[in-house]
């Protein structure tokens, strides 16, 4: 087992470093792809911010750099990537490996099939954590993200870490991880309630006397708030002013940069009438946020599933999604291997995603370079892509509910059911 793990991780690292060194122009190429790196995660923009930061120009007094301030000192420690990229490459490789490690911890915790209040009737149907890690490490989307050195890899790492720690009931590390994730890209904060619940369940099942949920929640929420506050304060000290808030979270909220991506927002707000822009921004954000409470309440017995589904929602409905988010979701879904038999549109959805990932680049080329197609080509593909992902999300949700039903009422198992 352990040898296999070493082998797997070694292979993954080797593949990445090989790609980095064998094709020196590949990182640059991928970093320029709109599907891989967005204005809020692009490595080239990070380099620009770094350049301005090291030359004492505020990187946030400009329209290029929209990423978290603490990344600047971190990356300024490394040698300049445009001349000595090796250190940066190693860093991103390690980030992926740690993510895989966290994923394995989640899988080993078994929270996906058996929580304190719920135990799936199909729990014997599982994949080994090693297979999960392999699925994550050799997912072409993950590899592309890593080669493009997009900072969403960091966000993914911390989301995975938060899930892992929550599923182990390690409160402090969990809160810390989720705080960093939300600090880096804001929307992961929505993962806090379900993961909090998960953490609570684990703790409760471990210790004989379960602490009261309320105090537990308040305590952790307080911890989260203080950690985030601390991070923000340090950032403010670092950049000397609070204007980074507008340049980072403000950009995510208000979408001033309409660079194309695989999501639904950019073309919508390109074509939106100015008078309605604010209104629809509000609606879209509300829409994203609305999934969290609904799922958490209905599926309170399987909080991990809620968290995973939310990552899927992020991959579709956030303003600047990239294939990195899709990679995260697609490598988390196999945790619920036992639900696959109950899913109905898997083949359809996967084929859709597959086609979209082939046609997307082709249509983008036609629009931007050949000039023979127009923006609608690429837009149509982003629609298809989002549709495919959202179908998987919805279908897995159906499967989860059906699974719960089978536990509640075993007599219905394998029978036709309908919703009322």
């Amino acid at each position, binding site marked *: 087992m352990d040898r296999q793990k070493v082998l797997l991780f070694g292979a993954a690292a080797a593949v990445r470093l090989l790609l980095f060194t064998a094709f020196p122009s590949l990182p640059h190429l991928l970093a320029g792809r709109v599907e891989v790196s967005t204005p809020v995660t692009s490595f080239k923009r990070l380099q620009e911010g770094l350049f*301005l930061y090291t030359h004492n120009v505020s990187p946030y007094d400009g329209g290029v750099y929209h990423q978290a301030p603490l990344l600047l000192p971190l990356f300024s420690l490394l040698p300049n990537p445009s001349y000595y990229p090796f250190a940066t490459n190693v860093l991103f490789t390690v980030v992926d490996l740690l993510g895989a490690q966290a994923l394995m911890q989640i899988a080993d915790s078994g929270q996906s099939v058996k929580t304190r209040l719920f135990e799936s009737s199909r729990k014997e149907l599982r994949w080994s954590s090693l297979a999960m890690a392999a699925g994550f490490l050799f997912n072409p989307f993950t590899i592309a993200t890593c080669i493009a050195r997009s900072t969403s890899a960091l966000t993914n790492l911390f989301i995975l870490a938060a899930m892992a720690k929550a599923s182990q009931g390690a409160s402090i590390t969990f809160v810390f991880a989720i705080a960093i994730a939300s600090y880096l890209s804001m929307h992961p904060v929505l993962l806090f309630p379900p993961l909090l619940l998960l953490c609570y369940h684990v703790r409760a099942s471990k210790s004989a006397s379960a602490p009261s949920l309320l105090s537990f929640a308040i305590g952790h929420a307080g911890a989260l708030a203080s950690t985030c506050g601390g991070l923000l304060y340090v950032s403010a000290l670092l950049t000397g002013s609070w204007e980074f808030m507008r340049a980072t979270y403000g950009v995510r909220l208000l979408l001033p*940069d309409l660079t*194309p991506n695989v999501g639904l927002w950019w073309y919508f707000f390109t074509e939106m009438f100015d008078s309605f822009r604010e209104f629809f921004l509000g609606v879209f954000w509300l829409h994203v946020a609305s999934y969290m409470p609904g799922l958490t309440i209905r599926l309170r017995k399987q909080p991990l599933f809620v968290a995973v589904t939310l990552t899927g929602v992020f991959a579709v409905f956030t303003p600047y999604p990239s294939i990195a988010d899709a990679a995260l979701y697609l490598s988390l879904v196999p945790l619920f291997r036992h639900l696959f038999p109950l899913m109905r549109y898997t083949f359809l959805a996967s084929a859709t995603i597959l086609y979209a990932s082939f046609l997307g680049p082709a249509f983008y080329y036609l629009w*931007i370079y050949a000039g023979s197609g*127009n*923006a609608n080509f690429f837009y149509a593909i982003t*629609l298809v892509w989002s549709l495919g992902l959202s179908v998987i999300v919805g279908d897995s949700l159906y499967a989860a509910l*059906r699974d719960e039903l089978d536990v509640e009422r075993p007599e219905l198992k394998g029978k*036709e059911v*309908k919703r009322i």
Partner: protein
Amino acid sequence: MPSFLSLLLLSIILATVSAGSDYTERLLLRPLPQSALLASFNFRSNDSQLSFEEQNFRYFPRSLGQILQHAHTKELHLRFSLGRWDAESWGQRPWNGAREGGTGVELWAWVEADDEDEAFSRWLTLTNALSGLFCASLNFIDATKTIRPVMSFQPEGDHSNAPNLHLLHGTLPHEVVCTENLTPFLKLLPCKGKAGISSLLDGHKLFDASWQTMSIDVRPTCGIDGHCTLEMEQSVDMVLDIDRSKRPRDNPIPRPLPIEEIKCDTSKGYNAGDTCYPLDKSSEPSWNLTEVFGRSLKGACPLTDQEGENAETVCINTPPERTVDVNTTGSYIESRAVGDTLRCYKLPTGHDFDLNLPSQQMTTGLVLPSPPLSAARSINGHGQERGSIQTVITNPSPTSAVEFVYLESLPWFMKPYLHTLRARISASPENPVLETYYRPAVDRLRGTHLELRMRIPAASTLTLSYDFEKAILRYTEYPPDANRGFDVAPAVISLIDPAASDGRGQYVRTTSLLLPLPTPDFSMPYNVIILTSTVMALGFGNIFNLLVRRFVGAEEVVAGGGGLGALVRGKIDRLKGLLGK
């Protein structure tokens, strides 16, 4: 064998015009190679600072004066330019480039204000008023097109008594300069184009020129005695193609000449009645003012001095051997200077005046001073996603290094990556960049402002390049001709010359660039809104439909009522369940 006659004195002569006198004007004509003719008009009017502040205008135009007072503008430079100066064959730019602007409209001014915001609001007042005065869309110079240069521009005037001045600079590269800008320009002149050299300025010829620029400069000058005057200088420089402007206006089509009028190379073996290798004309073309400018020069403007060199308002700069016949009924005075290469004429008042140069075979030519720098800027790469700017600056001088400031003012939707900025000098590893000033753009608020102080060694080429990314705009932000692209203002190169001839400085400007942006489909807003909303609704509806509902066995529903109807209903429901699944 062309005789080596220096022209350096020329600029000095033109510069020393004016001292003291209240209104002077001068026209310099200089035939250039390839049957081109440089005509640079220059008008100056002085008013004392006091009378100006008392709103008591004599030569200074009231309309402009009041605008300046209202906007608290102490020094103003306004440029309308069109076409390209061909330094390769025409040599050094007139006024060392100090009286020209980039393609379109360029405006910079020193505004008196307590703080930045006040300065900017006054700047807006100024641009709006000027746009009304000159029928140009200067009012489109908003925050995104305005920068505050720190190194490139130095005040020409004497501002010892004005402490807190703010320099603001704006360009409109896409503005098409045309006759409607000339008319108000002439209106500012005391003689209003009715007499004096300004009577030669005709819209059609001016805007048919290969290169032309109109400039207005207002600056305070103070003498030693502390007596300050406000000097306004208007100049029009143009390069006319003599052949083209000699064509009659009613028939401007360049039809092929009859074969008899073409000089054939009879030495060619194949030369025949139907085969003719054309020889290029070796002789200077014949021309006179009236046919070149399409108007006749209506004598001197009576407001100019009657005596002294300021009275000589028309100068022509040719080799001495070139015959120049004066054709007028009035009395005129001709004087020669600078080794006879410069002939100046005092015009008769009230009588037409014309210069007539016959076609002539020349043995000597003028040596045109070579420009201190030549610059070419272009966009590399293709596709509407990103690209890179490359500027090649050459220092022809074999001996002296040149230090200069390179100013870029880019629109906000063109996002440069400064960390990709590379400046290389041919055959030398040293980094030419001495000092950098960079103010990045903010989306929809302000443009990029980049200034580089650089030094380029003798006889070497400097290549400057940086990458940029193109933003995609909201569909309401595109102009009607979205697929043409957007114009990027020319880069301004201002030489830092210790031995500056006059207080004006030396400038070189590159051409403007065309930046194609990715365009959305402008016919789609409704479809996009509908389709996107549909996809979101599908996701939302699907998920919440599952969340809010409750599962029950299909049979249980049917098991409810008995009888045929219930049975049928059950079947239907079952079918629905089947489909809905």
